[in-house]
């Protein structure tokens, strides 16, 4: 297959993706190095997290990403309707993520846990909530793309917008792949 010099979608979104990855990267490193000074504390409170919820959420994001891949393939075959449907399915999985994460937060807050409880929760809440906001932003982008796809705004020849939204959504997925083991599993 012919190799392209540029990644799929608008180059500007890729610059944005790199900036976002930098933000998350700094958060991850800060978490890891702070943990090194408070190993006991981090291990203790990490044990209170709900790993089953995290599993569901990880699977939801991967599935969602896969659906977006199918949506891009559909529009490349000039099938706007299929593209729209795959995007809808992806959005549904995004909703599942928000719901499960929301229940987790609900549980923490009902126990009176906040950013000031301890350093572990400060990181856990900050990082996951920052990611949570990215899921919302990604969904807003996907909704915009889906609506345009339904209106027939994309075609096999012109579908930059779909690829742009898809790239951003994969980034949200990518970040969670590291966030999940780092915060929920590694100790």
């Amino acid at each position, binding site marked *: 297959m012919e190799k392209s010099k540029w990644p799929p979608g*608008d180059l*500007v*979104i890729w*610059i*944005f993706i790199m*900036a976002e990855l*930098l*933000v998350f990267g*700094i*958060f991850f490193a*800060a978490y890891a190095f702070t943990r090194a000074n408070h190993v006991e504390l981090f291990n203790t409170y990490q044990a209170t997290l709900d790993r089953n919820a995290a599993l569901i959420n990880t699977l939801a994001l991967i599935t969602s990403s896969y659906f977006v891949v199918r949506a891009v393939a559909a529009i490349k075959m000039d099938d706007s309707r299929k593209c729209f449907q795959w995007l809808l399915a992806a959005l549904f999985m995004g909703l599942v993520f928000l719901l499960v994460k929301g229940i987790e937060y609900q549980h923490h807050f009902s126990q009176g846990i906040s*950013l*000031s409880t301890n350093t572990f929760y*400060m*990181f856990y809440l*900050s990082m996951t909530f920052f990611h949570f906001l990215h899921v919302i932003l990604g969904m807003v982008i996907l909704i915009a793309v889906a609506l345009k796809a339904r209106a027939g705004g994309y075609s096999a020849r012109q579908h930059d917008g779909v690829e742009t939204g898809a790239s951003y959504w994969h980034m949200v997925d990518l970040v969670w792949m590291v966030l999940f083991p780092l915060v929920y599993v590694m100790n």
Partner: protein
Amino acid sequence: MKYQSQKVAKLYFIAAIGLFVGQILFGLIMGMQYVVGDFLFPEIPFNVARMVHTNLLIVWLLFGFMGASYYLVPEEAETELFAPWLAHLMFWVFLAAGAATILAYLLVPYAALAELTMNDLLPTMGREFLEQPTITKIGIVIVVLAFLFNIGMTILKGRKTVVNLVLLMGLTGLAVFFLFAFYNPTNLVMDKYYWWWVVHLWVEGVWELILGSILAFILIKTTGVDREVIEKWLYIIIAMTLITGIVGMGHHYYWIGAPEFWQWWGSIFSALEPIPFFMMTVYAFNMVNKRRRNHPNKAAVLWALGTAVMAFLGAGVWGFLHTLAPVNYYTHGTQITAAHGHMAFYGAYVMIVLGMISYSMPLMRGRELCNSARSQSLEMWSFWLMTISMVFITLFLTAAGILQVYLQRFSDNPMDFMVVQDKIALFYWLREITGVIFLIGLIVYIASFFIGQDEPEATVEPLK
């Protein structure tokens, strides 16, 4: 200039430049007081000079933003201004209120001014940058609301471009955050907490949207690059600005008694605040390189590129220097802050206003595209004089700051504040001399509006 009503911007720009001169004069007075403590005492005490210096800066930048908006919005919306008479009226209200307030600072003791303006009815005075009497603050709210209404209605009835919408977003944020000037909780932590929302959420948040949209307008006009390309950049720049700027503002919360997590949030997010500024630099140079035409107004292009670079250096790099909590623990409130403040305000906001003036003023004064080659060359001289002296002011203040941090807070035998001030006096002298060069640059700038006006417009070779 396509619409008659754009011309109202001229008034605003003239006032802005006038107040700019005042700001620099008081800066020089204050700079002198750093080294000759009783200079002009008791007529102009240091605290009054400082108040006038900072207040004039903010007020003239507001005049500049308003002028820029009145020029830019009708052209983008492709319609006349909604109510030109309102823009005229508000200009005189704002100017009169501003002048009266500055005169009152100079003529009446501050406490007497508070009493005179019945501050105790709704106490808002006495906080840094927000020293204005309550009645002036109410006046500012009225002027800004009338301005927003005028601009908003113009956008509503005309073409809705990304540039206009981003600008409107920035201006609305400006108005909303100013309202916190009226909120004075008695709890000192809360009081400080919301104080940062006024000027600092401006400069680290919504003003960057204003900067971005004005810069986009100048680039669209002078480079002929497709609007779509420039708009895309504008989108990610404002997204990055809002993500990093609003939370990054937490770097002011380290030591005021706010919860500890702000040390993390503030450090991480504010460390990334240079990113949108860096993107702006890359994009400005990219657009100029990809230009479809050579615009004869070289001075305006120079200001546009200059603001992109200097904003990144002043706001981005110099901000980063002391933004991490462990560093800020030592540098908080030293001359490092002053160094950053000077270059950031000049690079991001002074230069963009001057750039907009540079682009639009010749057109409002009846030129087709630009000033004569002679005026432009003078203007470019003033660009370099002011910009280079600002770089040196920043470097001298940074050197003073590093020494101050070391002698006063870091060394094994820390010294008193005033003893340290004496020891770093050399840098204050150097700063004052550079300040005089800045003033000369400003005089050259003003001269460029008069010299070479009777000569024909500059021309350029068309792009091959």
